[in-house]
């Protein structure tokens, strides 16, 4: 399933904040792609990582589980995760799984950047 996941990391105007755009599928098979991109963001000095789900078109429970392990990894390293680009459907999934209690959701990247300061 990892063939269906693309994760692209880019820096922002704020030196300590990176955006990780996730496209395609998010399943347990996406682990390597996601963790590698997260590692690159951390190596680049990011303290806040904004996960952009604008290109996501499929996520199963394995994908949600992967987000939790990513969250634990981020917390262990003193990093902060935020989410943008969630449509109503994925916002509902975050609410259902109560992931929204641990990962701040923002409407836009600008709003997330403002909150990251």
């Amino acid at each position, binding site marked *: 399933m990892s063939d269906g996941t693309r994760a692209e990391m880019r820096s922002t105007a704020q030196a300590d904040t990176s955006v990780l755009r996730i496209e395609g599928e998010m399943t*347990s098979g996406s682990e390597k792609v996601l963790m590698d991109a997260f590692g690159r963001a951390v190596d680049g000095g990011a303290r806040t990582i904004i996960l952009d789900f*604008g290109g*996501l*078109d*499929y*996520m*199963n*429970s*394995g994908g*949600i*589980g992967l987000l*939790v*392990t990513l*969250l*634990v990894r981020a917390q*262990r390293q003193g990093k902060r995760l935020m989410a943008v*680009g*969630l*449509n*109503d*459907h*994925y916002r*509902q*999934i975050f*609410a*259902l*799984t*109560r*992931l929204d*209690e*641990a990962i701040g959701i923002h*409407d*836009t*990247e600008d709003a997330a950047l403002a909150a990251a300061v």
Partner: protein
Amino acid sequence: MATQPRSNRDTDAWARPVERLTTTATGAGADTVTGKRVTGPIQGFGQMWQKTFSVRLEGSSLSPQDLVSYWKKRFPTFWPKGAAFYAPLAGIAPGEVALLEVAPVPGSPVKMSTGVMVIFSDSESFAFMTPEGHALSAWITFSGHRDGETTVAQVQALERTSDPFVELSYMFGANRYNDRFWEQTLDNLAHSVGVETPVVDSLKVCVDRRRQWRYVRNLRHSAAVNMAVATVTAPVRWLRRRSVS
């Protein structure tokens, strides 16, 4: 950049968020789930474990999709002896809530009543989330996939114990007891599709060694604590009823 409505392939597979649980399941001794909220590993107390159990269905012609369909239909029959799963009327479908009775320790005559909510269900997998009061704050995913010519059945749990009481029991054997539960479940499943000598593989990873003390108050929902209190105070209540009558 505002988010635009778009359709997703998983739309029908996910449950809708609910504030409080309700169930259509019947047959259990008690419904300790109605009115509770769901919890996941984020809201749990103990160390976070990722447990993966799998069994290769050697010789079976079931595709992963056939397997998942079969597993959903006959789910309660694969549970180990001493545990009961009371399916909701609509079966294993997104948003449905099942009731369970499980022994807190092997051989216990007293059963702990709790439940699970089906949060995800499609042709390749289905997943449960636990309610407040359950011993574990967990997501458990059941799936089938292909490995070469063989279909593999898998259970993957991402879990924390819900409170310090259960965490302590996990340190003294309940963790291993929980592993055996899923190993036995997969063994039963494999036997039912004709695998003569199933081999269940397990992989346990402690994802987070820290305990989340901010969730210590989960104790107030604990089915295990409530069961223990009810058991200990049963003679007092019996005497009180007797004196009233």
